[in-house]
C-alpha cells in the first residue's frame, strides 16, 4: 500500500501547493517532521487561519481517508472510540429465542461480533483493514475536557485499540494524526509533548492574496490583493476579534457577488459584517476613518 510520504520539506511544500494550501516554510517543515517521525501534529492558532484545512489537504494529497473527531466537553470513550449496538443485540437475542432452541455459545459469539460493533472515529482511523490508511483530525481539542485528554493519550501512544470481546485492532499503516486547538484553554503538557507543535498565524498580504485567489474563483488579482491589504490593516487595530482568513475569503466572495470592482468607503462600511462579528468592533470601525483605512490599504497593496 501506498504511504507516499514526501521525502523532503520541498516535497511537502510542493504537495501543499498542489492541494491549493498556501503554507509558509516553518509549517511545511513541521508537517514533514510529523510525517517522517510518525508523531501527531498539534496546530494552534486563532480561529479561521486554516488549521483544519491542513488535515483535509493531507488526506486529499496522500490518498488517505479523512476521519474527523469533533471535540466537545463531555466527549467520552463511547462517542470517540466504539460502542456496541445494544438495541440490535437485544433484537437478535429475541429473534433467536423465538426461532428455535438457540445454541448459547454461538449466540454469544454472534452478538459480540463485528456486525454489532459501532466504530467511532478513533477506531475507524486505526482499523484500516478495509481500505486506505487514515488522516485522523481531532478538531478543537481545547473544547474537550481533561478526562478526554488523558484517554486520548492512551490511544495515541499505542496506535492500537483493544475491544475485549473481539480482540485488538492494530493499524497496518499508522494514521496521520492532526490535532487543532483554538486556545480557549491550555491543553495539558502531557498531550502536547507527544506532538509536534506549530502555531499558525495570520498570513501576510502576499500569501493571503494567493489563498483568496484560489478559493474565490473569478476574483481579480488586484481586488484580492486590495481586500487582503484592508484586512491586514484591520488586524493591526485594537479590535476585540480580528478577522481570520475564512472571513477574508467570505468578504472577497461577497465583493464578487456584489459586482464590486473597487473597494471604497461605502462598500467597506456596507460589507463590514463579513469581517467583524462583534458589535463593539463594528462600532469602533464605523468611526469615520474608513476612508483613511481604504487609502492605507491601497498603499499597502501597491507597496507589496
Amino acid at each position, binding site marked *: 500500500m501506498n504511504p507516499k510520504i514526501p521525502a523532503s520539506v520541498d516535497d511537502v511544500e510542493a504537495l501543499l501547493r498542489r492541494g491549493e494550501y498556501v503554507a509558509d516554510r516553518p509549517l511545511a517543515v513541521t508537517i514533514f517532521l510529523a510525517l517522517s517521525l510518525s508523531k501527531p501534529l498539534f496546530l494552534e492558532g486563532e480561529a479561521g487561519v486554516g488549521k483544519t484545512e491542513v488535515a483535509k489537504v493531507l488526506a486529499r494529497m496522500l490518498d488517505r481517508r479523512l476521519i474527523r473527531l469533533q471535540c*466537545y*466537553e*463531555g466527549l*467520552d470513550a*463511547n462517542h470517540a472510540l466504539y*460502542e*456496541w449496538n*445494544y*438495541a440490535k*443485540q*437485544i433484537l437478535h*437475542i*429475541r429473534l433467536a*429465542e423465538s426461532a428455535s432452541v438457540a445454541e448459547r455459545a454461538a449466540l454469544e459469539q454472534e*452478538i459480540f461480533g463485528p456486525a454489532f460493533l459501532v466504530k467511532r472515529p478513533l477506531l475507524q482511523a486505526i482499523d484500516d483493514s478495509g481500505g486506505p490508511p487514515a488522516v485522523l483530525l481531532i478538531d478543537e481539542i481545547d473544547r474537550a*475536557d481533561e*478526562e478526554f485528554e488523558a484517554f486520548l493519550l492512551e490511544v495515541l501512544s499505542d496506535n492500537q485499540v483493544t475491544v475485549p470481546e473481539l480482540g485488538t485492532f492494530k493499524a497496518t499503516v499508522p494514521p496521520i494524526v492532526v490535532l487543532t486547538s483554538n*486556545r*480557549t*484553554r*491550555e491543553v495539558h503538557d502531557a498531550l502536547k509533548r507527544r506532538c509536534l507543535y506549530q502555531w499558525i498565524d495570520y498570513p501576510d498580504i502576499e500569501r493571503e492574496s494567493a489563498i483568496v485567489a484560489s478559493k474565490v474563483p473569478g476574483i481579480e488579482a488586484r481586488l484580492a490583493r486590495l481586500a487582503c491589504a484592508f484586512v491586514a490593516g484591520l488586524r493591526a487595530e*485594537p479590535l*476585540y476579534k480580528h478577522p481570520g482568513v475564512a472571513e477574508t475569503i467570505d468578504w472577497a466572495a461577497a465583493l464578487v457577488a456584489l459586482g464590486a470592482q473597487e473597494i471604497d468607503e461605502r462598500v467597506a462600511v456596507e460589507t463590514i459584517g463579513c469581517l467583524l462579528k462583534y458589535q*463593539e468592533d463594528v462600532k469602533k470601525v464605523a468611526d469615520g476613518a474608513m476612508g483613511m483605512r481604504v487609502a492605507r490599504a491601497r498603499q499597502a497593496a501597491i507597496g507589496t
Partner: protein
Amino acid sequence: MVLLASALECVGLERRDDVKAAARSTLVRTKDELDRFDIAFDAFWRARVSGADDATAPIHGVPRDRDDPVDREGPSESGDPTQAPTAGAPLDPRTADGGAARPASLNAAKDADRSFTFSADEGLYAKDFAEMTSAELDAARRLAQPGVWDLGRRRTRRMVARAGADAFDARRTLRSSLRRGGEVVELYRLGRKTKRRDLVLLCDISGSMDRYSRLLLHFVHTVRHALGSVEAFVFGTRLTRVTHQLHHRDTRLALDEIASSVADWAGGTRIGDSLFHFNRTWARRVLGRGAIVIIISDGWDRGDVRLLAKEMRRLQRSAYRLIWLNPLLGSAGYRPQTIGMRAALPYVDDFLPANNLRSLVELAELLQTVDHRRPLRRQGVPPVALAR
C-alpha cells in the same frame, strides 16, 4: 475507630511509639493533619502522666502544617507571647477527638485554648488591614489558612453514573440486560458531573492600593494554594499575569517574584487599559468555563473612564460572576464617589469590602455558594453596596 482498635491489637500496647505510629496510620488522612495529630497525641500523654494541672495549659508552639504555604514573612516584632498560639490552635476535631479514650483533660485543654483566644481573634477579625501593627498583620496572615476556601461548582457536559438522577443511561441498562438475556431488570441513570469553577483574580497594585497590596497578594497566594489553580493578574498601568509566580509554596518567594516581574508596582492606575488588555488577550483563554472573576481595587483611576466602563461591560458578559473587592468599602461612611468606581459599578455582580479578615471570610462564604444558577443581573443598575 474499629480500624484503630484492630491495629492496636496487632501492634500491642507495650511501646508508646508503636501505638503512636499505629494511631497515626489509621486516623490521619492527609499530610496536613500529621503535625496536629502529633501535638494532640503528645498532649494526651503529657496530661496522663503529669496530672490535671498541665491539661489546662494552652498548647504552645503549634508548628506550621507541612503542606501549608510556608509563611516566611516572619514575625517582625515578637509581640505578646500569649498571642502566638492563636493561629493554629483550634485542633482539627477529627484527629483530636478520634482517639481511643480521650480524657476530659484534653478536651478541657482545647476549650481553655479556644476561649482564651476567642476574644483576641474577634478584634483581629474586624480590624482594618491598614491599621494593623506588624504583629497583628502576622497573626492575620496565619489566620487566612487554606482549608476554608472552596468554590461553587458548575455542571459540566460530562455524564456520570448517578443513582436517582434524571437522564436514562441506555447503554448501561441495556448492557446489564444482556446478562439476563435481554430482560431489563434495573434502570441505570446518568447525572451531570460537577466541577469546581475556575477563578480569575485581577489585583490592583498601584500606588493608592499600596497599604493593602502586599497583604491582598498574600491572600491571593493562599487562595491559589487552597484551590489548586487560579489565574492571577496584577495591574497598575499595565496588566501582568502572575499565575506562574504564585506557584511557589513559599509566600515571600512568590511575592518577591511578582514584585520583580512587575514594572509598575505602586505606580499610576489605568484600570480601563488593563481590562482592555485582559479582555483582548486573556479572556478567551481563561474565562471559557464559566469562571468567577474577582477584581481587587479601590477604583481610583487615572485612565479613560469610558474605556473602563466599556471593558467592564464586556468583562461582565464573559465572566460567570464578576465580583469587585474594594478595601475602602469597609470604612464607615465610604460611598463610591470616584468616577472610576461609579463607572464600573453597574457591571459588578457583587460589590464587597476587602479591608479586614471578616470581609475575606465572607468572601469565602460567598464563593462557596456560587453555583449553576445565574446571578440576577440588573441591566445597568448598580447593586446595593454592602457597607459595614
